[in-house]
């Protein structure tokens, strides 16, 4: 659940505008931190973003791979907001999610990458990189899905202005939504985690220095 497939004009303005502001602050912080290391990290970050865009733009029915877990492992955490923004901006230009939802989508994607990176860093000290990558991706996807689900349920329960009418009139019970989302999503998490694990296994064998971006 690295991004929300919501088109423009559906979410309330305060939500997407607030997300844009927060995202801009995070990107600026990342750029300040990047500083003189720009030439070292930017080409890799751009290629990682391109890989995620390619993966996300290949639709497999109503599912597509994200590879955000891989991105979180391969780029330093301060760059995740920038990479997430680039991914979602380019995807929005291709009609993949609304342009006004780019900020919110980028926040979710950046969170997913950061969580995956942090877990991978912790686990890979003891476990093999492939196993660490599998668990890191699985947990990161679970966290981001839970966040998006919590957001939807929060909007639904509150009497918030603008289009909250949408949520108030929802007739499906909350528990059914939760069961449906997790039931379908868990299949995607397993597939995604397996793919990222296989990719990290290859990177660890061929280019192990790429897994040391944290040092």
């Amino acid at each position, binding site marked *: 659940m690295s991004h929300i497939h919501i088109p*423009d004009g559906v979410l309330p303005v305060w939500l997407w505008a607030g997300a844009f502001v927060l995202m801009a602050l995070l990107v600026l912080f990342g750029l300040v931190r990047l500083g003189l290391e720009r030439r070292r990290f930017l080409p890799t970050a751009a290629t990682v973003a*391109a890989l995620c865009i390619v993966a996300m733009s290949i639709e497999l029915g109503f599912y597509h791979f994200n590879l955000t877990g891989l991105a979180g492992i391969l780029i330093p955490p301060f760059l995740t907001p920038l990479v997430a923004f680039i991914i979602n901006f380019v995807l929005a230009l291709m009609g993949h999610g609304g342009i006004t939802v780019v900020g919110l989508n980028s926040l979710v994607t950046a969170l997913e990458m950061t969580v995956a990176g942090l877990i991978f860093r912790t686990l890979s000290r003891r476990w093999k990189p492939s196993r660490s990558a599998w668990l890191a991706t699985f947990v990161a996807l679970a966290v981001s899905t839970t966040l998006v689900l919590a957001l939807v349920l929060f909007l639904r329960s509150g009497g918030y202005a603008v289009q909250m009418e949408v949520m108030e009139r929802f007739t499906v019970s909350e528990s059914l939504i939760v069961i449906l989302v997790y039931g379908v999503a868990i299949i995607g998490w397993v597939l995604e985690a397996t793919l990222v694990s296989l990719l990290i296994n290859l990177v660890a064998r061929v280019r192990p220095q790429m897994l040391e971006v944290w040092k």
Partner: protein
Amino acid sequence: MRIALVDLYATRGGSVYHRATAAAKILWAATMIACAILANDWETALGLAAIALAVLLTVRAPASFSLALAFYPVVFALLFALAIWRGSFAYPATLLLRALTASSTLAALILTTPYPNLFHHLHRFMPRAVCEALFLTYRAIFILVETIENVFRSLYLRGGYGTGSLARNLRGGAVGLGVGFLRAIDLTERMNQVMVIRGYEDRLHGSLTERLSAADALPVLLAFVAIAFSVAMRLLGETAIAIALPAAVAVAAASGVVNYVSIQDRDS
């Protein structure tokens, strides 16, 4: 690959929208999306959608491709629309038409404007490093697609992908993606080194020089029409539906005809 096709249509086309400057089209797109978000009745959203669709369907990209781009986000809006259905179609229709307007507008923009031209104007709103990263990503997408296609072709010919079990395909797919990704990183880094040798100093000096042309009149005019139509619908209410809505649809149709008929070969 969708992005490669979009780039092809944006570069090769010769409609009025293709010849207009990126700045004029960005102005039009921003106005259309703002009007769509602020539209609070389905009639206003319908008029705006008519304008966006008229442009999209006359940029001479294949209609099936253009409509797939425009309607893909509408499928997700439909889920929301169904959820709030209570016999009255007004609010769900507004939601759907808002989404259609925004997606058709963006589709028309990217099908008529090459990505580098779009990114060129972004430096006014975004930090330099972000624009630079966008440019590098755009370049990397094509390197990646080509490399991955080659790797997958050779994997397929050697029986490592496309046949057998899901597990085998997943393993083969991961190897293909991984090898393609590592090669793409090498190529991107090499491109960066070449840029440094050629005098790159953390700043991309765009060679793009856009001059205002007669073709800019169409997107600018349509931006004004969108604003005037939205304001009229809001101020005049029921009265505007009888006058402004047909007028907006007529302008949309006329602009579509102009866009479609006055085609020019870009190489000439």
